[in-house]
């Protein structure tokens, strides 16, 4: 990962738009290394899907990004069951032999990313998968790393980082109390 994303103290986390600008620039640099027209963004519901949608537009990529709802691939189904609002996954392009950039809002344990990669392979065998996240909050439980991030926060804030999208399309980040698996 280069350049290394800035690390922030939990009480000094910049606003989501600043983080997004850094993420966008990092993703642009990453895409420059990949063969054009064989690259697709895939956003994870719901924050990652919003980010992928905006990146697609801001980076001038053709077509639509894919979206994934990883509910059917979670590793904690036995404990928490199926949550109420499952969205359909939608991958409107061939996955086989393409370079995919998985986009999510917060990278934490890495379990969501594992589930997303498992799901992607059920669509075909991609040439490669990269990971771009708005915030890397540490706390990994799996060997997973992002190649592009808007920022790192360390140590992790006390609670859940939640991305919201306003009516004008602008992002905001809030910290919610109850921690869940991310």
């Amino acid at each position, binding site marked *: 990962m280069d350049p290394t994303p800035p690390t922030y103290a939990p009480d000094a986390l910049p606003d989501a738009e600043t983080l997004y600008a850094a993420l966008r620039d990092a993703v642009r640099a990453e895409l420059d290394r990949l063969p054009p027209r064989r690259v697709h963004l895939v956003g994870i519901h719901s924050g990652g899907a919003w980010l992928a949608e905006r990146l697609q537009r801001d980076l001038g990529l053709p077509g639509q990004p894919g979206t994934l*709802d990883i*509910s*059917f*691939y979670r590793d904690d*189904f*036995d404990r*928490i*069951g*199926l949550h*109420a*609002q*499952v*969205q*359909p*996954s*939608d991958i409107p392009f061939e996955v*086989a032999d393409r370079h995919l950039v998985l986009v999510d809002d917060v990278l934490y344990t890495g379990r969501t990313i594992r589930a997303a990669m*498992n*799901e992607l*392979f*059920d*669509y*075909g065998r991609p040439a490669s998968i990269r990971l771009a996240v708005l915030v890397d909050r540490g706390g990994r439980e799996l060997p997973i790393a992002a190649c592009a991030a808007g920022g790192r926060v360390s140590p992790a804030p006390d609670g859940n980082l939640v991305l919201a999208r306003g009516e004008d399309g602008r992002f905001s980040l809030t910290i919610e109390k109850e921690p869940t698996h991310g």
Partner: protein
Amino acid sequence: MANPQLNRNGELVHLLTTEGLPRDIVTHILDTAQTFVPLADREIKKVPLLRGKSVFNLFFENSTRTRTTFEIAAKRLSADVFNLNINASSTAKGESLLDTIGNLSAMQADLFVVRHEASGAPHLIARHVAPHVHVINAGDGRHAHPTQALLDMYTIRHFKKDFSNLTVAIVGDILHSRVARSDIHALATLGVPEIRAIGPLTLLPGGLEQMGVRVFTDMRAGLKDVDVVITLRLQNERMRGALLPSAHEYFKHYGLTHDKLAAARPDAIVMHPGPMNRGVEIDSAVADSDRAVILDQVTFGIAVRMAVMSIVAGTQA
């Protein structure tokens, strides 16, 4: 009144009937099914949700379509599926229903899909299984066939989008039909303002009006301006009793033809739970027309059964 299919938090542990099934659970099932439909277009049509779980299809009564779609649904959820043809096995040797269930539970069953000729058999099983075991009713006697009703609701929602302005007619042998009963409960729960039952008096049960159903014995009057026609299978054995004169006579009055269907709205859809008796309850010309959504029902049935299995399997008793 305690609902045996829900846990203390009101979540779905078993699916036994659409009667008393809360609207938000019905909607959750339909929404979840909708996310499973696009799987059919993927290279790998499976998700790992029920990996390592054992699903036992217990069919005490014959069925091909329902059993097969449950089997496909369980396999697409990555469960291990075991089909038991009970008629040919232990029951014939005198084993009781609960002993059969006890034995299969000892084989680490996680989910039972049960069809039984006795109304209430799935309820009985649900009361006796361990807390982590789930039961889905795949048709019990004349009582209920909830997954058929839910796939019917899915099909109606797919083609009509909204339930709040619909007129739905169920045609045929309502008296013996668990599909009709389950459909009526589900349609009422989803807020369908007009539910009609059409059939000869001998095949219409009492008490339909109390369920909010308008009863018709005349086909054209009953079909007037309906949005959805659900045609029921006429079971041949009814003809042997005194309930009906002949298949020919039945077709003349209640067989769905284009001529009778002309009374319905021009965009009305025709449904049938299968298997169809062409020339008895439905004319081939209708069954094969673009008004019929009978094969869509079969396809949606897989997604709906996947949704039901994944929701109950993820709920603690």
